[in-house]
């Protein structure tokens, strides 16, 4: 027990680590999820007990699965004993059975790319034991969730699920390790330029149940709005749901304000925890949580993904709250963020105030507006008269291609990201959202709609695109003022300085190398952000 509880020693010993708040090991070893859990436990936040099988083991597993599992198995069993003691429950049997989640945890989050198995440790006896205090419906729902997930991820649809909880655990851990090399994870890493050799950690955590009774549920909570950057809580709440329901898109999700109305004390505790984690990480947090019979549990936390608008606004907010200094403020905003903001786009405030009519898969990017036509001939006639046309079809047929060409955008009821409609829309360069669900096209007919091929959304009305400007948008002016105080190259919108219109890294490097200190430019902020990045590369 003490052998695995210790966070010190040589890295070779860090195979199975208890996340009890003093693991104090780097994110690279624990993975993002394990690291976040350890940090939360250290702050005495309500986190179900968990242990981590490190990325080191994940890498060894890929090279030699059997020997690696044999080598760590005793430590895994020790970790399970610790979970049993901590929860006063027993794994694989009653009267108070322990169920666990087995989660992937790479160093860099790859949302939805790798596998997670919930409710593991389930068999006939466990289901019966769960049913006696909590009710047969809860026990049955939990069993069903486990069986579906285990079959999907571990055993395949036709194979029986083993009744032995330890056999489930071992197979579950192996499946999560192996999912590092799943095609979608490999494609994701290739796309984002992430290292293929990192491997994943596995986190084994005691289950808490959002599907248990009336005052229960699961959700995702953002400490601020990651879309607009407004300093207001944002998130989703699924009464009676478990964590995987949040991402499945199969159940109705309520806004986080619903939790505030239903369980104000839980909501307040969640807010307090989020603020505390924000201060700890000096950044906006995305927290996965479960409420079990009125008790809040935090399952994981991480710095949240954000839009370019939110990146700018959050950096300025956190600076004014004293959480980050000037240099960090400017590190939080990249030149690419500013470039994106200067391009005409559907601003988040505009987007979120227009009613959402349909949601599907983004098949070809862009934002266009027009009148929705279900009939190809009518669409072609309208386009001939110079109207802005959106072709909305239940599914596309070969004869629709001319209509697609004449339209500004395309919406379909059925079809995936590799459907004929998606293929043709990309080839024609027409904004497309596909697979919106049966009956959507008919419901859109005749309406003025805006198709957002970035978000995969159809919204009501002809929404106008707009752009931020370095001279007119207060947030960008404020950032530029901060940058002029610390950038090695000061860039100004006006003034008697050498002109610099080329904002490329090479041009900024050349200006720095020749000892320039002040230049005039259309985009002073982009130049200074680039200069600050280059300077920090030289002298870290």
């Amino acid at each position, binding site marked *: 027990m003490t052998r695995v509880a210790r966070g010190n020693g040589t890295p070779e010993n860090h195979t199975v680590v208890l996340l009890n708040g003093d693991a104090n090991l780097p994110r690279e070893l624990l993975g993002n999820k394990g690291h976040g859990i350890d940090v939360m436990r250290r702050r005495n936040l309500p986190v179900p007990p968990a242990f981590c099988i490190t990325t080191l083991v994940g890498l060894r597993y890929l090279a030699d699965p059997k020997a690696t599992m044999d080598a760590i198995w005793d430590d895994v069993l020790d970790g399970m004993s610790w979970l049993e003691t901590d929860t006063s429950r027993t794994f694989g049997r009653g009267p108070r059975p322990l169920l666990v989640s087995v989660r992937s945890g790479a160093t860099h989050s790859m949302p939805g790319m790798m596998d997670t198995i919930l409710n593991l440790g389930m068999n006939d006896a466990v289901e019966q034991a769960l049913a006696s205090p909590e009710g047969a419906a809860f026990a049955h729902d939990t069993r069903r969730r486990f069986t579906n997930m285990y079959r999907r991820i571990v055993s395949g649809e036709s194979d029986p699920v083993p009744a032995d909880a330890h056999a489930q655990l071992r197979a579950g851990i192996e499946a999560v390790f192996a999912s590092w090399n799943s095609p979608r994870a490999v494609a*994701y890493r290739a796309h984002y330029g992430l290292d293929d050799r990192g491997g994943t950690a596995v986190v084994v955590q005691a289950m808490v149940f959002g599907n248990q009774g009336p005052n229960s549920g699961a959700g995702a909570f953002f400490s601020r709005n990651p879309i607009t950057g407004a300093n207001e809580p944002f998130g989703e709440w699924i009464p009676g749901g478990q964590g995987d329901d949040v991402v499945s898109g199969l159940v109705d999700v309520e806004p986080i304000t619903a939790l505030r109305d239903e369980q104000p004390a839980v909501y307040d505790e969640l807010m307090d925890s989020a603020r505390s984690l924000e201060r700890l990480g000096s950044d906006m947090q995305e927290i996965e949580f479960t409420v079990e019979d009125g008790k809040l549990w935090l399952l994981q936390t991480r710095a949240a993904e954000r839009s370019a608008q939110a990146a700018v606004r959050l950096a300025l907010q956190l600076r004014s709250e004293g959480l980050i200094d000037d240099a960090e403020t400017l590190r939080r905003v990249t030149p690419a963020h500013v470039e994106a903001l200067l391009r005409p786009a559907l601003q988040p405030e505009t987007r979120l105030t227009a009613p959402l009519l349909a949601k599907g898969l983004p098949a070809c990017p862009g934002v266009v507006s027009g009148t929705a036509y279900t009939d190809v001939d009518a669409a072609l006639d309208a386009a001939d008269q110079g109207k802005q046309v959106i072709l909305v079809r239940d599914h596309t047929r070969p004869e*629709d*291609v001319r209509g697609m060409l004449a339209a500004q955008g395309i919406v379909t009821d059925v079809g995936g*990201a*590799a459907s004929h409609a998606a*293929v043709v829309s990309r080839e024609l360069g027409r904004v497309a959202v596909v697979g919106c669900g049966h009956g959507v096209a008919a419901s859109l007919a005749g309406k003025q709609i805006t198709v957002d091929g970035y978000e995969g959304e159809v919204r009501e009305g002809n929404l106008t695109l707009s752009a931020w400007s370095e001279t007119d948008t207060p947030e960008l002016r404020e950032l530029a003022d901060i940058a002029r105080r610390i950038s090695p190259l000061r860039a100004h919108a006006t003034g008697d300085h050498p002109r610099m219109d080329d904002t490329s890294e090479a041009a900024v490097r050349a200006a720095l190398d020749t000892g320039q200190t002040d230049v005039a430019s259309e985009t002073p902020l982009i130049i200074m952000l680039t200069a600050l990045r280059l300077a920090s590369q030289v002298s870290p």
Partner: protein
Amino acid sequence: MTELSVLQAVRLKGRVTPADLAVTLGDDLDGITPIVEQLTESGLLVDGTALKISPSGRARLETLLAEERSGIDSATIAAAYQDFRAVNADFKALVTDWQLKGGPAGKPNPHDDAEYDAAVLARLDDVHARVVPIIDAAATQLPRLNAYSSKLLVALGKVNDGETAWLTRPLIDSYHTVWFELHEELIGAMGLTREEAARSGDAQ
């Protein structure tokens, strides 16, 4: 050139110039002009800036297709359709990899990586080798479908000669255009509507 072939070609193209219609039918303009004129006079086709099928033409086409289907061995067609579904999934994955890098949610392929592009295109020969016997089998019941083999072969030849637009470009008989029409034909040969095929998760 049969009435059925011409009506079906016009329907699948939506709107088509007589010259393009001749190409897709494997004929020349002089060859198809008499039947096109006859179908236009009888109101089955509408002649404008391009030809299109009229409502009565569509009804006539449905009748002709139903006649063509009557008496065929439906088990053979069903088997061909099942086989097609598998190779269809692989072909669309190929096309998506050609258009996007990083899977269906990836970024547009800028076609600046010759090695990547070559690896994607190399998969087309395998797809073609698998689809030809499927068309052969279906054509034992519906000989008209043999034309799709020839058109796919023409597009494949152009792609292999480096004219990569012939993989996916719409409005020409590119590999994907012909494939999309073949898919529609097989759905029709099954006696399914696209709605029914869609409900079974297969009109994509």
